[in-house]
């Protein structure tokens, strides 16, 4: 369970201060997929970075399974599985070594690591690439490796930043099945996307972010009711104000 309350974050750049996030709050429950939908540059990645302790919010609170990352960031990192926007893998290591490296950093035993890698490899259908050096992997193979690496410690909460970015149709479909599986295992899944159809198809709850703020949130039915639109896509466009930066 992840709770965010009134998050604010600004960056100082050469041209002045950029207010990336100004008032984002939502609740992501266990056993549900929560989608953050918003155009590029809306503040999704910054919000997620604050959730996984890479950034400290200027204002607002976060709770991950009741723990405040400001007070115990290590405990929060242990409770989270994170697929960041930057998802580079070590190209001279095999996929298995990439995953095992993170397992060791999580303090896992060799036996438990092997067991988890076997489980994840089966779930992500990556047995054939597991012992290849990752140099020359396709985008899909790299993403699978990065996801397995993020989930190797069997976290209760999973945060994925645009997980289907750059994937082909088949891999995207497999990825969606995998997300459902994570949800059915009772995990709290948060993912961000700028693809309306994907959010509509996957999410139990949707949080729509535009210009650093939450403009609407709720289940698909609630969003349709709030906006009075019959189609979810029309509802999205209506609350954001325009379809710019979104993808059908």
């Amino acid at each position: 369970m992840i709770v965010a309350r009134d998050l604010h974050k600004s960056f100082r750049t050469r041209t002045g201060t950029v207010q990336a996030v100004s008032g984002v709050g939502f609740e992501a429950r266990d056993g549900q997929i929560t989608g953050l939908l918003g155009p590029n540059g809306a503040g999704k990645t910054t919000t997620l970075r604050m959730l996984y302790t890479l950034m400290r919010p200027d204002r607002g609170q976060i709770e991950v399974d009741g723990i405040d990352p400001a007070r115990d960031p290590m405990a929060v990192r242990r409770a989270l599985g994170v697929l960041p926007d930057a998802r580079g893998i070590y190209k001279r290591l095999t996929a298995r070594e990439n995953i095992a490296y993170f397992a060791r950093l999580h303090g896992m035993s060799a036996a438990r690591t092997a067991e988890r890698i076997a489980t994840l490899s089966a779930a992500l259908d990556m047995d054939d690439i597991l012992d290849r050096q990752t140099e020359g992997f396709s985008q899909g193979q790299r993403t699978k490796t990065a996801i397995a690496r993020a989930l190797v410690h069997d976290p209760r909460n999973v945060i994925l930043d645009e997980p289907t970015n750059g994937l082909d149709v088949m891999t995207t479909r497999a990825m969606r099945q995998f997300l459902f599986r994570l949800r059915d295992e009772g995990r709290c899944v948060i993912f961000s996307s700028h693809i309306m159809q994907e959010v509509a198809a996957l999410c139990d709850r949707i949080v729509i972010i535009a210009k650093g703020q939450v403009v609407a949130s709720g289940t698909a039915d609630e969003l349709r009711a709030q906006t009075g639109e019959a189609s979810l896509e029309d509802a999205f466009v209506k609350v954001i104000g325009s379809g710019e930066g979104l993808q059908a």
Partner: protein
Amino acid sequence: MNALTTMWIVMCKELRDILRDRRTLVLTLVMGPLLFPAIMLGMGALTEKKLRTQSEKELEVPTIGLERAPNLVAFLATQGIRAVPAPEDLEQAIREQRVEVGMHIPEEFAADWRAGRPALVEVLVDTTQRDSAIPASRVQGALRAYGAQVGALRLLARGVDASVAQALNPGTRDVATDAARRGRVLAFILPYFMILTGFLGGMALVLDATAGERERQSLEPLLATPAARGAIVSGKIAAACILGLATLLLSLLALKSSALMATGITRQMDVSMLAIAKMLFVLLPILLVGTSLLTLLAASAKSLKEAQSHITWLMLLPMIPSLVLMANPVKTEAWQFAVPFLAQNQMLLRIIRAEAVSPREWAIYLGCSLGLALLLWGAAVLRYRQEKLAIST
């Protein structure tokens, strides 16, 4: 999980990563050790060959007024110096390095000689040409010997003991130890090479593991794990130190073998295993200083390319004390053991010259260099704790 375990895990991963990058590894590990023998054997052989040919080969000296002093010419011939008729433009020829050294016997030579007055013989040389030093001193030496010989004969003919005219017999006793004399040749070049090897030995790994990792976008996931950031950066520094240590060890062993293979002066350096071990120990702090500084710089750089461009000035840094010492040789004093690079330079010279280092000097040296390393390491750790570091885009 404690910080040491994390450090160990990160170190093993970084080493495994670089071990699979064969080309980088070979360039790092082998280039230095190959260059050492090449430079030492090459330079030693060249100097010696030059020395031998210039001091033993028959020297041809174009002479103006050759016919005015046939006896002198005959004497010079017995010393391996053959006087030949001079070309028209002797001075120009010397300036243009067509002739190494020339002689001028003036018209009054015969008259002065017969009258028993000192007869002028000029040696023509361009002292700004390094090449001319040995031939010129050969000719001057031969002229002095002829002068002394004839002078002594003249005194003898007048019934006077020649040694009466020699009131003083100046001599020089060189108190330099054998080891010091052997080390002199390499005093300038060797410390620089070794300090540079230590200083930048872990370069390839540091750049790849810090700026490279950020550029390849694998840093953000790494920092999202519960591993302590201080331990992560320490692990990377430790891996770079191990690579640097391997490079240093290979370089020192190459130095040892090339010193054994070489002829002449190079051969006589102190390259015992004890001396090698001491040099390695002296270079350890600079290895730590170098890798920590590089980590700090590379972690602060926006891109791998920016990080790489630091190498240019970093390579010149260890050269400064060598250059200063070359221009202005100073006595060894305690404070020098506190200045980075200068301290290593002095320590290495002591070891090459087989001189003792006092406990106080060891204390100053280790205290200051390890202190600096600690400071830089701390700065690198702080840098890794900053929020901005993780964001690669």
